[in-house]
């Protein structure tokens, strides 16, 4: 069967209209994917704005509680406050400190944390951070068994010393496995705290 060769297919470069028509669904898809990837952070940013008046500890440390964090009746003493959200907790202590942040941190672990703990592991190295106010701070993590609490507790302590020897210790803790879910909140409150 000898058929004449078929005509060559007509090929042409897609015009601007054709390209735009092809690009529209791709752009819609990319926008939808961007919403999925980054939408959580944006939503969380909106939901986690500070609410209510600042909490002042010992007249020296001010913290803006994020939505959901309660301090109603949880004052430990005049120089300490406990903020809670579910099983997540943030203890804020205003302390005088003759030394630097690292010394304040070690002193807190020795004088406050260790006496309460039945078994305690503290991270061997400290992490240096800087608060939004510009103050330098140090941070460590710990895990341990504490009297009166079922199961292990994991926590993170941040210590900072302002001019004049005004110190603050932020001890965020929760049952093991749950700290992860409140740690961003704790960091946000610590990072925006005012000391001194």
């Amino acid at each position, binding site marked *: *069967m000898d*058929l004449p060769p*078929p*005509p060559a*297919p007509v090929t042409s*470069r*897609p015009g601007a209209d054709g*390209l735009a028509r*092809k*690009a529209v*669904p*791709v*752009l819609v*898809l*990319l926008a*939808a*994917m961007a919403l*999925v*990837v*980054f*939408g*959580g*952070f*944006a*939503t*969380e940013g909106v*939901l*986690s704005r500070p609410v209510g008046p600042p909490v002042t500890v010992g007249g020296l440390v001010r913290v803006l509680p994020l*939505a*959901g964090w309660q301090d109603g009746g949880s004052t430990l003493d005049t120089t300490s406050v406990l903020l809670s*959200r*579910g*099983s*997540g907790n943030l203890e804020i202590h205003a302390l005088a400190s003759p030394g630097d942040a690292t010394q304040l941190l070690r002193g807190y672990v020795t004088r406050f944390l260790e006496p309460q703990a039945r078994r305690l592991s503290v991270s061997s190295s400290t992490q240096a951070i800087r608060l939004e106010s510009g103050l330098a701070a140090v941070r460590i993590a710990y895990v341990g068994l504490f009297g009166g609490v079922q199961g292990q507790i994991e926590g993170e302590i941040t210590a900072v010393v302002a001019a004049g020897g005004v110190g603050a210790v932020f001890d965020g803790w*929760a049952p093991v*496995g*749950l*700290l992860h*879910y*409140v740690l*961003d*909140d704790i960091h946000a409150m610590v990072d925006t705290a005012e000391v001194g």
Partner: protein
Amino acid sequence: MGADRAPAQPPEPPVSDARFLRLREPAFWAYAAIVAATGVYAVSEQALFRRISPTGWALSWLLLAVYSLPVFLAVYFLDLYEREPLSLVFAALVWGAIAATTLAGVANEGWGLVVARAGGPEFASRWTAALTAPWVEETLKAGGVVLIVLLARDEVDDVMDGFVYGAVCGLGFAVVEDVFYFLGVFGGTPSGVLAGFYVRVVSSGLYGHVLFTGLMGMGIAYFAAHRKEEPLHRRVTVASGLFLAAVSGHLLWNSPILDLFPRKIQGPGDWLLIPAAVVVKGLPLVGFVAVAVVLARRREHRWLEAALRSEVGSPWLSSVELGVLLDPLARRRSRRDMRVRAGPRAARLLGRLQREQVNLAMLGARPRSEDDPALERQRELCQSLRDALMAMPGAAPAGGRGAGPPLARLP
């Protein structure tokens, strides 16, 4: 024709399968940009795993290669009539392994914060995986399948095609996620990796991302392939329904509902409980997907028969050949018989003839005139392949050529 002419030379096969590299398609550039950007992170993550535990990392990939190769082949060959271009199938695999896993890691973290904020830490610890990963991961994997459909609309003809792209994308995702779990959750030691492999692969079998994304791919393919014959609302309903089924299966899997998994492994009974727990959670969706795949294959069978019926009796397709084409086992048997009768070259040529006859069905199924040049070219190609085959010594059946080359006994 053919018999009284010099033996015809079989036409040259296509030079290469370059259907993925469509440089004029915006979808190609979107795909390439996202895979390149996420690839940097994915490679650095694997390098980190390798540094942490070289043996565990190598063992993880070895075990997962042993698992994923047969799964890949099973999925690929599930599409009985028209195998998808390998370049596109690999593009789906790479998207699942690199882009979807990396983007999902970022997205899950963000939406996990929202769950923790809205529900508190206790609720978040139980429900974050169920309320974030299913829709986040299915959407991001679907993004890759949609890009492939946009890139090569002409390759996605039916729901089975979507199943192949989706399942392979899910396979890529599952493999990289498993490496992460073996190293990050099960400890990364060889014994930890083996435990992880038992829990996440041996016990779970095919259940997981392969099924979820396969199901969703069917929905995407239904939406794309039936745009001429089905109204928009029906296509949206079917695609959304399958997407929801995939997300629901994933959600049930990640949720604390029906969770029979042992909290701690303390003895052989706990190891045996794991597959039982998987069956309870996974069986409903496995059954649903199995039914969907069987229905899709039947639909494809009917489609092929309808598309080729008008070609039967022509010099490029006989009724016997159509019967063989419709039965995958008979197709394989016909090639085996041909190899015995006329040698491997003839068997390969017969395989090519069968593929081109299926391609003829695809061309014929697309709206075009009967004398469309592409259709005519395809008919000519089939006829020339057939002539070439018949000219090969031993290829012609003993009973003469009345019905064309009856290339196999019908079952």
